[in-house]
């Protein structure tokens, strides 16, 4: 059981060492695209209030519609995240089959995408519920898209639950969660594409598919908002994967130290 707790101790040790011998070549520079993420997102926040005009036909003289610059990218990312998670899960299984190696990196990427999917799904649900409360007069209407995003949230949650239940065996956890990600693609697809179309919805369906329906001042903010949120997604995912790799490395180191101690 000692191996479970040792990485924490190890981490502190490592930080102590790292401050001691920080050579110039390891100095940290802010990557350009990360700075750009900060800039574009700031532009979107300012633009949502001062570039876009109040939308016609929305509550509070159109002011309420400004939330769509945050709600729509979150909702789109919450379904894109599943594709990313599925892609890496499938790649993990294919590599496992053909090369007989353990491609943990793909497992981490898949898990990170799923975690972020859960996060963005939650954000989309919250912003959507606020918007619905102002626009439709009730915070929850059982609109098909509302239903499907909640079930999507449950799907993500059960993926994370499956991972948590097998956390003591990383190899088994990787395989099982990859299989779940592959099989649950079917309900996820139905939730993203079919359910909002089979049942009658109150959501406008042409905002993204038909550019003529959206005014120029909205496009000028909405499209950068997508770029900003996608960049943020990539950044968060990269951080999460790196964190998992560091964690694994520490676990490995700690195990080795313990083995040498016993000898």
């Amino acid at each position, binding site marked *: 059981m000692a191996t479970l707790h040792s990485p924490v101790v190890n981490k502190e040790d490592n*930080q102590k060492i790292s401050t001691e011998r920080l050579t110039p070549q*390891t100095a940290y520079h802010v990557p350009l695209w990360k700075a750009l993420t900060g800039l574009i997102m700031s532009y979107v926040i300012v633009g949502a209030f001062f570039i876009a005009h109040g939308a016609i036909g929305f509550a509070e003289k159109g002011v309420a519609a400004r939330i769509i610059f945050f709600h729509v990218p979150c909702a789109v990312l919450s379904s894109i995240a599943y594709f990313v998670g599925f892609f890496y899960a499938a790649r993990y299984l294919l590599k496992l089959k053909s090369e007989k190696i353990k491609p943990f990196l793909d497992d981490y990427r898949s898990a990170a995408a799923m975690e972020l999917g859960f996060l963005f799904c939650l954000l989309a649900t919250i912003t959507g519920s606020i918007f619905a409360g102002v626009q439709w007069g009730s915070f929850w209407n059982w609109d098909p898209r509302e239903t499907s995003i909640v079930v999507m949230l449950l799907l993500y949650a059960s993926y994370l639950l499956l991972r948590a239940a097998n956390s003591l065996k990383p190899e088994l956890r990787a395989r099982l969660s990859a299989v779940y990600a592959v099989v649950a693609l079917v309900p996820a697809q139905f939730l993203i594409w079919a359910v909002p179309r089979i049942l009658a919805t109150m959501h406008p369906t042409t905002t993204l598919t038909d550019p003529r329906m959206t005014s120029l001042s909205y496009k000028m903010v909405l499209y950068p908002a997508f770029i900003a949120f996608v960049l943020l997604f990539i950044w968060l995912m990269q951080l999460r994967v790196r964190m998992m790799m560091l964690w694994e490395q520490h676990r490995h180191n700690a195990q080795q130290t313990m083995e040498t101690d016993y000898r």
Partner: protein
Amino acid sequence: MTHRMILMLVMAVPLVVWFGLFFYLLIIDRAMHRLENNQEGNDSI
């Protein structure tokens, strides 16, 4: 208060939250950068 000022105040909330998040992420990025470099140093020794 004019409509514009109210908009300004409401805008300040997400802007402050975003700046906080942005610099928090940068700090994590930097800390992880250090740890990663340190790890590579450990391996070579």
